[in-house]
């Protein structure tokens, strides 16, 4: 099995990794950001902040000397945010089924 070198792992984390994690974090934010007085903060804040989330992940992947920490942070965000989205979709499908 080919082993990915540290350099390539960093490039993968800073490139496609940062894009995927930023998009999943954006989706996950709809589940935990407070809706606010107008009931829309959880919908619009993720849309506004996604370029900054991506930039933060990109520079973290570039500058953190410990590659493992970069991977753990990215994987943690991916799992937690992905889990929240999955939980929301599951709850929605259950509700729809009950309504039917």
């Amino acid at each position: 099995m080919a082993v990915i070198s540290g350099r390539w792992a960093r490039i993968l984390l800073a490139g496609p990794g940062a894009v995927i994690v930023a998009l999943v974090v954006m989706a996950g934010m709809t589940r935990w950001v407070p809706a606010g007085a107008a009931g829309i903060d959880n919908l619009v804040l993720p849309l506004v902040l996604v370029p900054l989330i991506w930039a933060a992940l990109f520079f973290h992947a570039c500058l953190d000397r410990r590659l493992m920490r970069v991977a753990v942070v990215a994987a943690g965000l991916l799992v937690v945010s992905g889990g929240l989205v999955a939980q929301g979709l599951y709850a929605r499908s259950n509700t729809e089924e009950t309504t039917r």
Partner: protein
Amino acid sequence: MIHLAKDETKLMVAVHGWSGIVLGLLLYAVVITGMAAVFAEEIGIWSAGHVEAKSAFARPVDGPVRELAARTPAKYHEGVNLFEIGDHNLGAFFHRDETDADGKFVSRGIYYQLDREGRVVKALHGTGEDVFGPRNDDALSSFLVDTHVRLHLPNPWGLLLTGILGLAMLVAAISGLLIHRHLFKDIFTLRRRASPVLVDRDRHSVAGTWSLPFAFVLAFTGSFFSFFGTIGVPIVAMAAFGGDVQKLNETVFGNPGTPDPRAATPGNLDRVLADAARRGGDVPTFVSIEHFGRADAEVTTFHRPREGGLAPTTLLYRGATGAFDRVKPSIGTQPSAGGTLTAIMAPLHFGNFAGIVSKAVWFALGFAMCYVTLTGLRLWLARRREAARSLDWLDRAVTVVGFGLPFALVGAAAAFLIAMPLGAAVYWTPAAFLIAAALAILGGVVAPSRAALDRGLLLATGAGMIVLPALRLATGGPGWTTALAAGQPIIVALDLAFAISGGWTVWRIAGDRAVRTATAAPVLHPAE
């Protein structure tokens, strides 16, 4: 000051350089057209010779809108958008929101273009994407905006590409900040008597550092706009509403209330607009009517930000009675952090929050960004030239794009001025741009040296700019007296701006002061 270790600084220099070099030329195209598009409205007035100073919303619109409603199928009364087109004429889009066969959320209906007397000049049927395109009298400003927004690529690819370019600019801005070892010293360091490359480096550094906050804001807001509809909305709709984009739009932009589908005669729209002009400080720039002709109809008027403000003003009226309901945030039903943040993204990107002054500042900072992009590319090449790696083709490509693009834009403007009176501007504006771009590319191939190419393209651009005001007058555009009498000083201002900047460019080149041939390239250290 942010202090990075030597290795990290080197890495940031590499990130800064490569983020620019990989996408720099495309980024330059987006920034330079964006810089011009700051004045898209003014360029539209200047190029088409618009002399009507009174807004369409300051003239009676109630009668024409009722007549349009009577000839439009009731299914398209779900939403009516009213806006200005051409020389302060009215445009009306009667539509309904629906999901098309391939699951895409669209607005479908009839788009009416009216003349000054309120008569229908054109009626276009289809989705928003089908019916909204350049018209003969706004082909030039539309061309500029379209190039900036999506580089003329089909949706969603154009928006995705400009979004990626926005992210590259964000990376260049942040890494540019991180690589400064002496930020405050660098802001003021301009060694005029140093070698040409060091002079260029200083200029790049000074222009780049001063415009860093602006670059950050532009990159951030620009990538937000590009990704908003293409990626953001579908993903957020999937996570929050199981993929129902319409529900997301209703929640964020709609005015929720108890539905009342009973038919009701609409309130007088002219009275609504007069009241809105008084409350909003100026006539609206856009009007939206939900459920036209129903008891639950609502009219929303959108206004420019008030003096000293950043967020636009939005007013809500009851459609059936025309009574004022409340001041409403642009986004959401009540003021909120997310709504306010989203509402200020447009003024921050377009620089239109303080009229012509903020637009001029945005234009100047956009010019600085173009300069930074171009000199950054040149510095990257200068460093490799001394390392004996031949990148002459890239050097020429930078000139072809860097100076060829303004040349092609001037060519497009000249073609528009000639073709508009003949009714052929929609075709000839982009065609002339392509022809001028082809000439610039040809020049890049046959020019004896890069310096000669620089000189040729700059001279042609300067000469073209000098000719534009005369061409405008010769093709039937209003003279200065007519323009001033009609309250359109912008026509005179743009004539002068073209003549002066064109004259200055020609004078600089003719005096052989603008283009310096970089013959001796001194050593540049990696962090430089």
